[in-house]
């Protein structure tokens, strides 16, 4: 391998370090990376198009399946947007239950990330410890909602399942153990020498760069940008809860690890408050059966923001008065964080690629959304020219590409 020659190393679309397909073409010089090319959208499933064909209630279950780890984030954000268009009052108890499930989801997501990060570093022991402790959170979620992921707890106007009195002891017991383990990880992981060797000064993103690139979530907070939707634009029960926004100043990979570890500790505190202060009341504010609510959505558009474990999740819903939405647009948090990955990759080593990519907690299933307008200006241009395509044109193009019959 002659020095100075630029070789292209493909990481993906199938690669042991990636949990989902994505393609990074790295220009390398020896072990150092000089440039990177991202290709996402391998996981594009046409969610937004499918959402236009189902009614508002069915869309909850569809949008939940955008991602398995942040499923509650997507349903809550969507349901909040629809409830704005619907003029229904969500009772306090339902808001508290949504917060409870949301924070439990943050716990399980961050513990999952801790394990995956450990595995990318070659630290399999940390991986198994983190995932063993994650089982406690998943057991709690299964008791509360009936499923370990894809909880389907939200419905238009409130939640579907109540938290019974006899479930509180189990929840508190699991929470105590998770708190203990979280304190252990927050103390031990940043002290282990090999973790420091791998994570310190890797993929540094300054505060200015993070602000400029509009990073969200723990990625931005680790660079010192204190953005948190739960404080800026409180939803559900967050305006009544007392918690801190965890930030760090260094902006390197170690900072992102520390921010997530401390967020686990913080989330445990929030869950404790929710369990202590849970108000009495109904779990749904609608006074009609839920399957009739799709017809009650008025014309208009609404935006809803939610602090998913990965950052700010944004849902836009446009209604035309019928029982199916006219347009649903999802901007997942990982979408906003990809430019920081490209920035972080430049100037670092090949060995750091999986770590830097894992550092933003990527969810490629969340990211892959492409909008195609059926009428009016179709904003998709395939060959880079001015040619604009409608949905039918795109379909014919695809068939032609794959050598099938074009009708």
């Amino acid at each position, binding site marked *: 391998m002659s020095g100075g020659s630029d070789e292209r190393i493909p990481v993906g679309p199938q690669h042991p370090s990636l949990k989902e397909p994505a393609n990074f073409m790295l220009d390398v010089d020896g072990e150092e990376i000089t440039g990177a090319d991202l290709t996402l959208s391998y996981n594009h499933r046409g969610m937004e198009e499918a959402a236009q064909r189902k009614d508002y209630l069915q869309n909850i279950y569809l949008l939940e399946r955008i991602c398995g780890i942040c499923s509650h984030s997507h349903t809550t954000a969507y349901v909040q947007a629809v409830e704005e268009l619907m003029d229904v009052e969500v009772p306090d108890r339902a808001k508290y239950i949504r917060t409870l499930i949301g924070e439990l989801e943050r716990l399980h997501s961050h513990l999952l990330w801790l394990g995956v990060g450990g595995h990318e570093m070659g630290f399999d022991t940390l991986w198994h410890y983190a995932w063993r402790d994650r089982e406690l959170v998943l057991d709690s979620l299964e008791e509360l909602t009936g*499923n370990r992921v894809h909880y389907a707890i939200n419905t238009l106007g409130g939640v579907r399942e109540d938290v019974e009195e006899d479930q509180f002891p189990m929840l508190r017991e699991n929470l105590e153990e998770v708190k203990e383990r979280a304190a252990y990880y927050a103390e031990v992981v940043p002290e282990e020498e090999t973790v420091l060797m791998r994570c310190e000064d890797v993929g540094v993103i300054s505060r200015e760069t993070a602000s400029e690139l509009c990073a969200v979530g723990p990625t931005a907070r680790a660079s010192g940008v204190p953005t948190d939707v739960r404080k800026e634009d409180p939803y559900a029960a967050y305006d009544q809860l007392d918690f801190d926004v965890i930030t760090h100043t260094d902006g390197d990979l170690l900072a992102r690890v520390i921010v997530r570890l401390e967020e686990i500790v913080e989330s445990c505190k929030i869950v404790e408050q929710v369990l202590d202060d849970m108000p009495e009341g109904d779990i749904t504010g609608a006074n009609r*059966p839920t399957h009739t609510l799709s017809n009650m959505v008025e014309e208009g558009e609404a935006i809803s923001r939610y602090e998913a474990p990965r950052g700010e999740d944004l849902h836009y819903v446009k209604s035309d008065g019928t029982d199916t939405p006219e347009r649903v647009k999802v901007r997942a948090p990982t979408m906003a964080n990809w430019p920081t990955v490209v920035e972080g990759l430049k100037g670092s080593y090949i060995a750091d690629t999986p770590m830097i990519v894992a550092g933003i907690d990527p969810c490629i299933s969340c990211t892959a959304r492409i909008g195609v307008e059926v009428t009016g200006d179709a904003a998709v241009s395939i060959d880079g020219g001015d040619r604009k395509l409608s949905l039918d044109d795109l379909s014919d193009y695809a068939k032609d590409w794959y050598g099938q019959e074009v009708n």
Partner: protein
Amino acid sequence: MKGIPGRVIPEALRTLGKERATVKYPHEEADLADRFRGKIEYEADPCTGCGLCERVCPADAIETENDGERFVWRYDISRCLYCGQCTEACPPDAIVSGQDFELASGNKENFVEEYGFER
């Protein structure tokens, strides 16, 4: 050297004494929560043939046929999301969520359940 090498070793050695975290499924039975949403269970007796279940299902897993004389209720396990919306929508509670999750089969025909009754 800013950190402590081998910081995890005390915990690692302590773990040797702990009971293993793995469950020996399928030799041991899986411990399910009460609210676990498995395959739905349908009873023809309370069913009025209203078709609400078919209307609310997000995955088109339930199909009904009603020609005035005979009502057929068809359920496809492979399409079902196990969300439980049909159980909520059904007025006489003819559909409830069961706990069965061992549904794998090598034969696609086994995935469709069909019930019919005379109206």
